[in-house]
């Protein structure tokens, strides 16, 4: 299946991919980001239960320096 | 909505008494005078600076309002009153001829003023809702709004909903004077009636502004207690109203009790010099505030003060209901006027000083509901 991760297509080979697993594979600590799945914010305690579907839009967002 | 709260009256007095010449000098040069500067300007320490204060007050007044003096006239609708107030001619316990004008009679009075050239009238009544209620005021406003640019009222305190109703009917401004900001004294001079509720009255200007009125007038009777502390309280009330209701203009009136036969004697004398210091001080404190000087004051004083701070004068006033139709009748007056000149004479005096007498700065016909 294919998802759109931060605007870029990404092919997922693993079955039953979840948000938690995606973060783990990317090496991103869950506490450092906000996850938006199809424009809905996913609460951290739901990461493990949020499975990804084909064509899902996933946004991983975090704070950066800014004024 | 946060309510207006005032420090203890004695604390206000103390603040003023603590002001020194240095404080006054600082207040005179500061760009944006604050409440402590006002305290200094109305303190005894500022008395030697009165001419300088007058000069600055005149400059600020001309800068903000131009070389103009606005004119208005009161129409007394009714002298029925359910309150007993020690200082007032309309007090319920006074034996005077009582009268409440019918709508037609009120309209006749208004037409007389209209023919004299007035565009701004102030509808005044004693505080008796069985004589003058919201429906009555609403009816008068609807009758008169086409003929006058501005219609102010000075009646009993009303609710925000009632003020909204009156605004829709064409009332543009409401004056409600606290009489005194000294709570203890307030209890002593307001003997009975709804007016005994100090806080309800204190919160009235906020209700007026919340209803969307273009202007709210505040004031204190001068002669009941320390005028300096009353002045500082007025300044605090004014500043609070400005911050809280930025789109309602504020005016201040200076009803000064004068010694007169058979009338309530001032508890504390307030001289013309004192009154002038208060007017100049408030002008320096707030260059935008409208300052009213009524016909309570004598012609000599009013002429002298033209352009020095006040922005609005009443003229040719009669303070009894129906007084314009029956000029010989003086029974039932609220107070006897100090400046007895006709409006023509006042206009000439204003022009002679190089000022433009103006009858309006707005037309209530343009008024829309917000």
């Amino acid at each position, binding site marked *: 299946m294919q998802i759109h991760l931060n605007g870029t297509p990404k092919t997922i080979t693993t079955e039953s991919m979840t948000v938690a697993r995606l973060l783990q594979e990317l090496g991103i600590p869950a506490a450092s980001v*906000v996850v938006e799945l199809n*424009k809905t914010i996913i609460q951290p305690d739901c990461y493990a239960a949020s499975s990804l579907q084909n064509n899902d839009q996933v946004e991983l967002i975090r704070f950066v320096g800014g004024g | 909505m946060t309510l207006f709260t005032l420090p203890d009256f004695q604390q206000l007095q103390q603040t003023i008494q603590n002001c020194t010449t240095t404080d006054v000098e600082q207040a005179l040069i500061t760009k944006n005078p604050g409440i402590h500067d006002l305290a200094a300007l109305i303190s005894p320490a500022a008395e030697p600076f009165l001419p300088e204060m007058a000069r600055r007050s005149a400059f600020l007044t001309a800068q903000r309002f131009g070389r103009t003096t606005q004119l208005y006239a009161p129409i007394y609708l009714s002298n029925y009153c359910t309150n007993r107030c020690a200082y007032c001619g309309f007090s319920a316990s006074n034996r005077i001829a009582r009268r409440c004008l019918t709508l037609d009679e009120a309209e006749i009075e208004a037409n007389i003023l209209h023919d004299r050239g007035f565009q701004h009238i102030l509808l005044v009544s004693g505080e008796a809702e069985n004589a003058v209620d919201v429906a009555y005021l609403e009816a008068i406003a609807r009758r008169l709004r086409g003929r006058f640019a501005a219609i102010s009222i000075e009646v009993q305190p009303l609710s925000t909903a009632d003020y909204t109703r009156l605004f829709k009917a064409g009332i543009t401004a409401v004056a409600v004077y606290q009489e005194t900001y000294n709570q203890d004294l307030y209890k002593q001079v307001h003997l009975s009636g709804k007016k005994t509720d100090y806080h309800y009255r204190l919160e009235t200007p906020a209700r007026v502004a919340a209803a969307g009125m273009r202007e709210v007038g505040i004031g204190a009777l001068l002669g009941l207690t320390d005028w300096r502390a009353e002045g500082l309280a007025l300044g605090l009330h004014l500043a609070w109203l400005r911050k809280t209701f930025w789109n309602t203009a504020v005016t201040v009136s200076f009803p000064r009790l004068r010694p007169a036969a058979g009338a309530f004697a001032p508890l504390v004398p307030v001289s013309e010099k004192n009154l002038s210091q208060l007017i100049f001080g408030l002008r320096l404190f707030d260059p935008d505030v409208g300052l009213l000087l009524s016909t309570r004051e004598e012609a000599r004083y009013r002429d002298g003060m033209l352009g020095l701070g006040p922005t609005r004068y009443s003229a040719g006033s009669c303070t009894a209901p129906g007084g314009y139709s029956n000029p010989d009748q003086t029974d039932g007056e609220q107070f006897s006027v100090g400046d007895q000149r006709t409006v023509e004479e006042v206009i000439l005096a204003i022009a002679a000083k190089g000022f433009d007498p103006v009858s309006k700065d707005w037309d209530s016909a343009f008024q829309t509901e917000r």
Partner: protein
Amino acid sequence: MLTDMLTIGGHTFNSRLFLGTGKFSSSAVMKEAIAASGTEMVTVALRRVDLNNPEDDIMIALDRKKCVFLPNTSGARNAEEAIRLAHLARAASGSSWLKLEVTPDPRTLLPDPVETLKATAELVRAGFIVLPYMNADPILALRLQDVGAAAVMPLGSPIGTNQGILTAFQIEIIIDQARVPVVVDAGIGAPSHAALAMEMGADAVLVNTAISVAGDPVAMARAFAQAVEAGRTAFVAGMGSRGKQAQASSPLTGTLATDLGFLA
């Protein structure tokens, strides 16, 4: 001055210097500059994680015990985008602080007053502590205050221009009228600009570029802290007014003044 504290959204600040965290050469320099500035409020922006560099996390460099985090909505071009960013910011920060920025014109990055007012009203309803970035328009400041903004942040000059307080006259009116704190934001290019804003009576200033791109950002942060404190102290002390004409330090009573001979 222990009594002279600033309160915004129920939180009390000792320092009246707010710091932006953009454009620093490294997290280490930023961290040191924040410490040197004494700031208790830092702004941060929200961006997509750089998937090629996923370890780059500003939060590691910032101490949330010392500073309130003020996420901004930079990049938003309308109210809708700003509101989406605001909710993301709340999820990311766990708090409701928000610096609302709506800048549709990428050239000037000037804030859109209509969209800003709309977004402020909606975000206040959603429970955010909203500090809108705005042009120095006094009526807009009052309208934002009326819909519940916790403070207003008028610009001194367009962001990043280092031009100083070009809007001084308007900002003075805003300071005079506002019930909420006024934080002068954008365009402050030198400590003297910050001092001027504080002398005028601003409640705080927000500085970013002038510190982050200085030759020595840490020393510059210190300089700004001193300037803000000096300006504030001067304001509290009561500034004399400046006029075109000379004002005698000793007042001229009696002379050149209005004749009050009419008084009884």
